[in-house]
């Protein structure tokens, strides 16, 4: 499970942001994870409590939003969901596409209190 190291990275980023913006308490942290990212939301959630334990985010809730993995067909320019269509354009069955979204792993926002 590689998510733990990445959650530490998240905490580091949020800490930096909080310091710069004079935030001392965070109620909720909102992450956005692409469907094609190697980060599995279930595992992120599972290791989150251990990762924040003892930090200023100990009582911060975690919310995860999933972003779709979309491709743009190189032949007919259809935009389609890669997972649902097994990587094949539903318009012309072409398998060559350009990745538009889905690999993200973003810190979207924090709700400070």
């Amino acid at each position, binding site marked *: 499970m590689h998510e733990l*190291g*990445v959650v530490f*990275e998240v905490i*580091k980023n949020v800490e930096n*942001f909080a310091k710069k913006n004079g935030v001392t308490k965070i109620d909720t942290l909102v992450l956005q994870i692409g469907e094609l990212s190697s980060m599995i939301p279930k595992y992120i959630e599972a290791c989150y409590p251990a990762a924040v334990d003892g930090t200023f985010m100990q009582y911060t809730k975690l919310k995860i939003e999933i972003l779709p993995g979309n491709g743009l067909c190189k032949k007919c320019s259809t935009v389609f969901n890669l997972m649902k269509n097994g990587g094949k354009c539903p318009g012309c069955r072409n398998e060559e596409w350009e990745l538009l979204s889905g690999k993200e*792993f973003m810190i*979207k926002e*924090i709700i400070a209190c």
Partner: protein
Amino acid sequence: MNSFRVLEIKQSVFEDNDRDADLLRDELKKDKTFLLNLMSSPGSGKTTTVIRTIEALKDEMKIGVLEADIDSDVDAHTVSKTGTRVIQLHTGGMCHLDADMTRQGLNGLGTSGLDFVILENVGNLVCPAEFDTGASKNAMILSVPEGDDKPLKYPLMFSIVDVLLINKMDAIDYFDFDLEAVKERVKKLNPNIKVIPISAKKGEGMEEWAEWIRAEVKNWNQQ
């Protein structure tokens, strides 16, 4: 008390690390030290390849090695027998190295006077692909016994590396490994990738690999 503020961050989790990695690359450039990040699954032949590479190039450039491991120093010990400067980095349970850990390792090694540093990353095809170490170039080893379907299963790794070594070619007769299919799959993900079949054990392909490094080191010092 219940007034909540929403602060938009909209920042990739890897952004801080990416920035740090760019800084490290600039430092290495100034030092004229070429850093190669070598990644693969456990047991693909990273350490064996590192030793072969040192043998091939040690008379023409000053080489250093960073060995990253979750918790052991077997590889550093093996490499140190070649007489090369080597340092062991323990990632303490982490499955990857980030730019900051890499910088610490380089400081420990002391890069002044080194032309070429090889970083043997943690054996893993997932996380190292997501963390830029600050290396000049990224290389990956896929070994024949792992199978030719790996590019389909770990597309990110194959799409970020500059060069792919296909190791254990001496064993190809014992496995159903379609070299041409791998090349095709990899080029689809990464059109500019260089693919070099090698056998770190027997020495096959090592001259082409050494040639690639020579050219890259030269290029790094010129730009």
